Structures are given as C-alpha cells and as structure tokens.
C-alpha cells in the first residue's frame, strides 16, 4: 500500500498488511478503519434496536415480525435449546449482542462503501470472545464455587492416575483453548474471506490493466468469481455469527450440566 513503486509491473497478491488501515495517527492506539466501522455498527444497532422495540404489539407488524425472527433464533433456537429452559434467560442479552454485532459487522465486509470486515482484525473477535470467557467462568465459579468448579472439570469414575492428566487438559481447554478457538474461528473466516475477495478483485484489475492481449479477457471470470464469493460471504457472515453464539451457549450450558 505504501510502496507503489515496485508494484507497478508485477502482480502483488493481497496479504496481511492490506488489513492495516489507520485513518488517524499510527501505532498501538491509532484510529483504524475497522474501529470506525465497529463504532458506527454499534451506534446503528443501538438506534435500530431501540426504535424497533419502542412499540411492540402482541400482534406483530412487519418490522416487529423480522425483529422477532432474529430474536427467536437467538433466544429459542440457540439460547433455550442449548442452555436449557431453566437457565437461559440471563444470557439472552449476551447472545443477542454477540449475534447482532457479529452479523452486521460481518455483512460490512461486502456492503459498499465499507466493504471491509471488522472481524478480520483479531482485536474485535478477541473482545467478544473475552466477554464470553468471563461470563462462563464467572457463572461456573458462582454455581459451584472455585473448588467445585475445578473439581467439576474432571468427570467422575476415572482411574486415579488419569485424573491429573485430564484435569490439566480440561483446565487448558477451559482457560485457553476455548477463547482462543472462538477468536480464531471468527477472525480466520473473515480474514480469509476478505483475502479471497481481494485476490479476485485485484487479480481481475491487474489482468485487465496489465494483461497482454487475450489475457485481458481472463479478468471477466475473475470478476465473476468476485461477485460469486461476495454472495458466498453473506452466508459465511450469518454462519459465523450463528456458530459463535452456538459455541458460547454450549460453554455456558456446561456450567449447568450436572454430569460431564
């Protein structure tokens, strides 16, 4: 991006530095493009959700019907079915926040003029995963106490010599693996998806502008693939939001499961 000189002749495939887009300042606290998108999405969601829930009727209108579709998916299909009807209610706000925030931010990856997925910058998925992490750890310790929580990591009926091994494995799973995989899954999907789109767009552009003769025509399938994968990204955007809250629910559900 900063080096235009060397890129004049040969094609440079998109890579990680393309995702570093500071708008104001530089360094660790620079204001980046994704920050602005994130803030705008948050404000937009807040406004839309406040307005949409201002006058709710027992008989829903068209707007409320759509809102209830999203809410029902998060509340019933994920929250209630995974966590269980006895304990799911306190976690609805968390799941709804995660779902709407991830979905809209992911969709920003293909919606002009933004066309840049917020979650392809690992700070944001990490922030969300940390939220889930804190919630399920606090819920677990609250329910069983610290000792009970640690004891519950190891399923009963194991031979004594296996217990320490399983304990360590489970502890690592709880404390490290889960938040890390939660973060990486979302980040990786959005990052890779955007790289792929960049590749088709930039490759098509390069072929069209710098290609010789018939090679220019190859730009056409490249651009077609760009549109195809843009559509595909909509599916991914939804799927990743869904998977994120599904896993969050599974982790929370484990707090309330009495047997491992």
């Amino acid at each position, binding site marked *: *991006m*900063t*080096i235009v000189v*060397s*890129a004049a002749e040969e094609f*440079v495939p998109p*890579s*990680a*530095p*393309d*995702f*570093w887009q*500071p708008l104001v300042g*530089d*360094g*660790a*606290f*620079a*204001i*980046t493009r*994704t*920050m602005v998108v*994130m*803030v705008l*999405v*948050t404000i937009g*969601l*807040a406004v839309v*959700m*406040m307005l949409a*829930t*201002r006058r*709710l*009727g*027992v008989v829903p209108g068209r707007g409320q019907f759509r*809102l*209830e579709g999203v*809410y029902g998916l998060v*509340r019933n299909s994920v929250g209630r079915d995974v966590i269980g009807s006895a304990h799911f*209610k306190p976690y*609805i*706000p*968390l799941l*709804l*926040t995660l779902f*709407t*925030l991830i979905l809209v931010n992911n969709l920003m990856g293909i919606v002009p003029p933004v066309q840049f997925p917020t979650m*392809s*910058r*690992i*700070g*944001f998925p*990490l*922030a*969300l995963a*940390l*939220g889930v992490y804190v919630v399920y750890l606090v819920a677990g310790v609250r329910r069983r106490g610290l000792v009970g929580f640690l004891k519950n990591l190891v399923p009963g009926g194991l031979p004594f010599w296996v217990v320490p091994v399983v304990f360590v494995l489970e502890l690592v799973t709880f404390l490290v693996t889960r938040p890390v995989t939660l973060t*990486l899954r979302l*980040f990786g999907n959005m*990052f890779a998806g955007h790289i792929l789109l960049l590749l088709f767009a930039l490759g098509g552009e390069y072929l069209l502008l710098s290609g010789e003769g018939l090679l220019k025509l190859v730009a056409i399938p490249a651009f077609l693939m760009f549109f195809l994968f843009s559509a595909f990204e909509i599916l991914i955007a939804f799927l990743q939001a869904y998977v994120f809250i599904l896993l969050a629910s599974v982790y929370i559900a484990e707090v309330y499961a009495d047997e491992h």
Partner: protein
Amino acid sequence: MGAIDNTAGVLAVEGGGGGGFWEDAYPVIPHPGELIVGIISFAILYVLYKRVVVPRLETMLAERQRTIEGGIERAEAMQAEAKAALEQYRAQLADARNEAAQIRDQARAEGQQILEELRTQAQAESARIVARGEEQLATARQQVVNELRGQIGTLAVQLAGQVVGESLADDARRSGTVDRFLDELDGMTAAGDGAGGATRVGGSSR
C-alpha cells in the same frame, strides 16, 4: 508492499516504506486500540440490550403468552358454558314434552268428564221435562174430570126433570127421551171440541 517473513520467527518484518510494526505485524496479534474499541462497543451494546431491548421483548412475549392462554381459557369456558346450556335446553325440552303429554291426558280426561256431566244433565233435564208434562197432563185431566163431573150432574138433573115431565108412559117416548139425551150429549161433545183434549178425556171417561 512488505511481505511477512515467516521463517524469521519474529512478529513483524520491516517493510521497505517504513510501515511500522502494526502494518507488518502478524494478523493474529491484536491491535490494542481495536481491542479496546471492541470491548467498549460490546459492553455498551450489551448493557443497552440487557437494560432496554431484551426486557421490552420479554415483556411483549409474556403478554402474548398471557393473551394466548387467556384466549384458550376463554374458549374452553365458553365451550363448557355452551355445553351446559345445551344440556339445560334438552332437559327443558324433555320437561316440556312431559308436561304437554300430561296436559293432553288431563284435557282428555276432563273432556270425558264434561261429556259425562253433560249427558247426565241432559238426562236429568229430559226426565224433568217428561215429569212436568205428565204432571200437566194429570192436572188437566183432573180439571176436565172436575168440569165434567159438574156438567154431568147438571145434565143428569135436566134429564131427570125431562123424564119426570113427559110422564114416561111408553117405551117409544122413553127411548126417544134417552136418544135425545144422548144426542144432546153428542152435541155437547161436538160443541166442546174447542176445549181440546178435555173433550176426549171426557169421552174416554164415558
């Protein structure tokens, strides 16, 4: 553009244009500013949802649940009511039928009784009329007899006077006298026709 030097084992490799650490950092290293913005955005939205959005939706859902349950309860109550009303109507109908049958029987019986009474009354009436007729007849007869008795007496006296006056010498005269008497008697009968049945009674009494 700088490329990431994977083999160097460092987090970032300086690009030619001096892009800085963050341009060339591994993409898995979170940018602190973005992490903070992410956490704050997440927290704000979470608090807003928890305080306002979800309570509003839950209130609406609870209200809908109540409405639906209320509707079902109402429908059940109405059905039960309708059933009870039907039973009641059926019972009333049966009662009415019984009552109608009773009334019919009673009416029939009463009609019979009235007929009987009327018959008895008519019989009594006819008996009374016959009795009165007989009584009248008897009275009339008595009257005629009394009248006749008086007339016969007078006639007998006249006859006796005539008999005595014509000196009763021969049989011819005697028989003439008797015939005259009888003729007179017949004439009296003819004259007394105007008196109706009294004459016949008088005749029959002879």
